[in-house]
């Protein structure tokens, strides 16, 4: 899959972080499949099948994003879990994902996305 075509879904309730991620991804040549602050919106975007990978905040204003993780896993879509929690504090649905602890460096995210998307 070609990197330039990769559409990334951002699931993040913190608008400042979401916008910053969006800018970062765009500047790195990714396409934005959508930005969801809430679970329902995120589920809708996953169901539309318009994304190739996702960055998911584990906690959306007190609501667990594990249904999004399960839906992504079910569709075989790779995703990064971005969270202030430690990995062992997260529900099982996030186990298969690549974990990045908040706060993180931008290039950590880019490297992780590239490794997921460039995988054959």
């Amino acid at each position, binding site marked *: 899959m070609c990197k330039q075509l990769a559409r990334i879904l951002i699931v993040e*309730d*913190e*608008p*400042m*972080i*979401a*916008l*910053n*991620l969006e*800018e*970062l991804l765009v500047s790195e040549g990714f396409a934005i499949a959508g*930005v969801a*602050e809430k679970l329902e919106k995120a589920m809708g975007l996953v169901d539309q099948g318009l994304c190739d990978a996702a960055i998911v905040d584990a*906690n959306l*204003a007190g609501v667990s994003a594990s249904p999004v993780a399960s839906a992504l896993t079910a569709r075989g879509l790779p995703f990064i879990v971005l*969270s*202030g*929690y*430690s990995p062992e*504090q997260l529900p099982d649905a996030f186990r298969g994902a690549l974990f990045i*602890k*908040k*706060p*993180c460096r*931008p290039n950590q995210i880019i490297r992780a996305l590239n490794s997921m998307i460039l995988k054959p």
Partner: protein
Amino acid sequence: MRNEPPEGLILGAQNDTLRVQLDEAQELLRAIQSCEVDALVIDSGTGPRVFTLQGVDAASNRFRGEILAQVSDAVIAIDDDHRVTYLNAAAERQYDIDLGAVLGQSLSKVYQTRWLQPGDETVAAIALREGGAWRGENVHVKTNGRELQVESSVTVLRAVAGEPAGLLAVVRDISDRKRTQEAVRISEIRYRRLFEAAQDGVLLLDPRTRKITDANPFMTRLLGYSHEQLVGKELFEIGLLEDEDASREMLRKLKDMHQVRYEDLPLQSQGGQHKEVEVVANLYDENGSAVIQCNIRDITERKRVEEHNKLLMAEVNHRAMNLLAVVQAVAQQTARGDPVTFVERLTERIEGLAASQDLLVRNEWRGVGVLELIEAQLAHFKDLIGTRVLLDGGPAQLTPAAAQGIGMALHELATNAGKYGALSNGEGRVRISWQVAAAEPKSLFLMSWSEEGGPSVAPPTRKGFGQMVIGRMVEKAVSGMTTVEYRESGFSWKLSAPVSEALEPVRLTRSTWGANV
């Protein structure tokens, strides 16, 4: 011869004298028989002579007297009229008296008796009359008023014919013993009370059998076993230790170290309730025999609180990490602007984030009032509020997310107004309004920031961080819409968002409930 008394009269007088002498002799004989006389002194032609009457008996009586003088208990003899006939040295010391002063005197010159129980005196009298002896305790009040707790052994003394002739008492001062007993009794009561009332379980065990010999009431409450069920059981039988081997192991450790401590022992009570307990077992010596005391503390509640605290700490950590991620994003965005003002801008923005965070924490994440958010974000223009910064709106509680987003927007708006807008000169004014407007399908929360009287306004040439914050960022935070106008008269910003996104649900207070009923 005529003046001499008649012969018959003389014989009568001689007869009287002889009768008196006979009476005296009989009395003397009685006294000798009843051992009241040790010796006789006879006036003879060669002077007075002493005749001991009892030979070996007298010597043994003296020996007895010497023994009585040596014993530490007071020995007192009285006659039938309660007059003192004998006192030993211990009695002199015990009652602070002198033998010479009380011999032949009433016993009351030595002490007065006070009985401990109302019936005691009668019991003693009956025992003496019927059995010839009494043994018991009472109080002797000395002539100086001081009281002695005593234990007496009293025997009836009998004359030769067998009739009572007095009493012999051996009296022991047990005041010290009584005091010690009382102290022990009080101590026993005190520790009993501790044992009974303790809010920790206490078990006493016999180290030889490892079986429970006593359990306090708390222990029965903790486990749901009755006292009878607990006594005679081993610890593993009531679920405190896993099995008999663990019981043996505890005993071995106790012998080595005299104390064993088990933390976090999970325990199942009779009713099936899960308990967390902490057990401290000690091996003590009780007057030469060993005893194990186990203190069992129910730490279920403490564990629950610890668990809760752990969750809270994890939550605090998560929020801190999230906030740092926000700060990081703000820093990255700020870095896109003028490098010269980067540090100043970033510092201001972190200050704004901190002010909102402070309010959220103070309100326990249950939202922030619009007014308090404005006051926090416009802290630098505090003095202008009411004069050049006009606030217009009722009470409204923003959700945490809205407070954070709108807080950042207010910070950017105020910074811009201070640098280029209505608050950058001496007369410009800002009006901040907010309200809830009924609308279909959803009620809207409306907020606006309008400037006038500032320097003439021109739209910015470049979309910077500030534009992003008062635009897309705050729109995302409240799922709302913003409009910005750069009119000649001044800059204005408007936000509209569904009430359900921006405001905390109105909580029904007691008075509103009352109005509904």
